[in-house]
């Protein structure tokens, strides 16, 4: 029997803890492996640890395929059947609810009490996430009734208010998802995610395909929901969006968090400390616009040492041993931390 709930982990480590506020989400040594044919394994996420407090936004950034979305799926209990997890991901108890370890909770618990109610999901491809045969108005109304038990008479006003919160134009509520541009579908999905008033919002690439103005509006909107006291985990490859919204940044490479730091220090001075993070920032068109040479390693065939070594300008013999994550960075030759 799998336990539905566990006690929150009392031990917290300094490296992952920003302030004194109790975390809404506490992730410890989270690993996800996929079993493949022929006994092969894919190490999609390895040893991820972080805390996330109410009113705080953590942006998880990294290359396509580095494991960001798998980490999100693990938190939602939406991994496919061939996935094996290790570690813990505890969402704190609020208002009489128990703490839940998202990795071991039953599907029944996740479906009834977690998804939509304690974690609001803003999905990666909103057009695919929305029900194609129902209008946005119908989908909002249905979600309001299911999660908020809004009475029928109050539904029209509640639907309009829910659309407004995500800046979805109320004049388009009677459209079907395929009749919306990418930006509008994104806002419809965000409106749905906000309905349950969940303490934790999980946004997977919330700004992909949006124009700059909309990126800013979406980011600012999500920031506002964070400032209202929610915790926000946003997963993105869009560094500009991350800079606009995040308090802290976690950089993922080949399934590991290689740097976890304050967003202002990361995007401003002194900048990232991990060579991969430095390369990623430098590749931006407003910076050097120079790619990091080579490709990320295969997650089914990771080297024993540092996974970034074949592409790293700083690599030495020491890098044949995998670096530990310490002081916010996993690198044998990280940039010196900023001096106080």
């Amino acid at each position: 029997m799998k336990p539905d709930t566990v006690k929150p982990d009392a031990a917290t480590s300094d490296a992952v803890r920003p302030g004194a506020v109790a975390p809404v989400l506490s992730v410890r040594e989270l690993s996800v492996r996929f079993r493949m044919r022929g006994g092969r394994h894919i190490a999609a996420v390895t040893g991820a640890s972080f805390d996330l407090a109410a009113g705080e936004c953590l942006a998880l950034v990294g290359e396509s395929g580095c494991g960001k979305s798998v980490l999100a799926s693990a938190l939602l209990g939406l991994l496919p059947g061939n996935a094996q997890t290790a570690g813990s991901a505890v969402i704190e108890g609020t208002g009489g609810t128990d703490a839940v370890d998202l990795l071991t909770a039953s599907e029944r618990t996740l479906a009834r009490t977690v998804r939509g109610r304690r974690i609001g999901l803003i999905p990666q491809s909103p057009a695919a996430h929305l029900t194609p045969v129902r209008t946005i108005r119908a989908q909002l109304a249905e979600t309001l009734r299911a999660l908020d038990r809004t009475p029928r008479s109050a539904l029209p006003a509640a639907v309009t208010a829910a659309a407004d919160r995500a800046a979805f134009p109320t004049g388009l509520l009677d459209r079907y998802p395929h009749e919306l541009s990418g930006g509008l579908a994104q806002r419809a999905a965000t409106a749905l995610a906000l309905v349950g008033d969940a303490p934790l919002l999980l946004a997977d690439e919330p700004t992909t395909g949006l124009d700059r103005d909309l990126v800013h509006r979406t980011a600012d909107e999500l920031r506002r929901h964070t400032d209202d006291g929610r915790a926000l985990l946003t997963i993105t490859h869009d560094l500009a969006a991350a800079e606009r919204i995040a308090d802290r940044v976690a950089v993922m490479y080949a399934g590991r968090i290689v740097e976890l730091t304050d967003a202002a220090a990361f995007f401003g001075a002194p900048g990232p400390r991990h060579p991969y993070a430095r390369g990623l920032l430098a590749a931006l068109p407003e910076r050097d616009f120079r790619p990091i040479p080579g490709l990320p390693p295969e997650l089914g065939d990771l080297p024993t040492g540092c996974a970034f070594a074949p592409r790293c300008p700083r690599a030495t013999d020491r890098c044949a041993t995998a670096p530990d994550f310490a002081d916010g960075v996993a690198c044998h030759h990280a940039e010196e931390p900023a001096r106080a």
Partner: protein
Amino acid sequence: MLELDAVTAGYDRRAPVFRAASLTLAPGESVGLLGPSGCGKSTLARVAALLHRPDAGRVTVDGEPVRGWRHRAPRRLRTAIGVVFQQPRLSADPRLTLHDLIAEPLRATGRRTEAPERVAALAAATGLTGDLLTRRPHEVSDGQLQRACLARALVLRPRWLVCDEMTAMLDASTTAALVAAVEEYRAEHGAGLLAVGHDRVLLERWCDRTVEWAGCAEPGT
């Protein structure tokens, strides 16, 4: 020259997405077309790539007026234009290996004997290494698949390249790598480029000049 003259297009003749769009690209020139979400950029890109028949207006490719669209476009025009879309998963046949995906336009035009040499050259140019070419789309990342889609767009050595938000799904490093691959190809072959998107910083850094949507087309309805 690649010319769009007073083009009106959309999905419903009574309510076009945009009207009277005009845009001219000189040979070898790169133009970034900037517009907000939903304005119809992708629709215009599909018209310029001869994939969507406009309701009105003219498209001219190197002096030849376009009279047929999609499979009705003459082969010499279709092969003159390569196109890359925003979402590689929607534009890649899931049954093909990346090698066959890149070689597909060669097969379709009866030039399959060129495949081994062209695919090897383009894999190198787009940074596809190791056994990636033997995998199918679901076995590679978005970034790797988009590299293959770019290679496919270049395999017939087009004189024009249309990129519709080619890098919108990609991280900064993969974006810079794909733009570098496009520019290397253009430097070698003198090809022109229409890059459509909404990332001003990117398109201004990438292209010879940028054009604002509002100055190029009128709203449909």
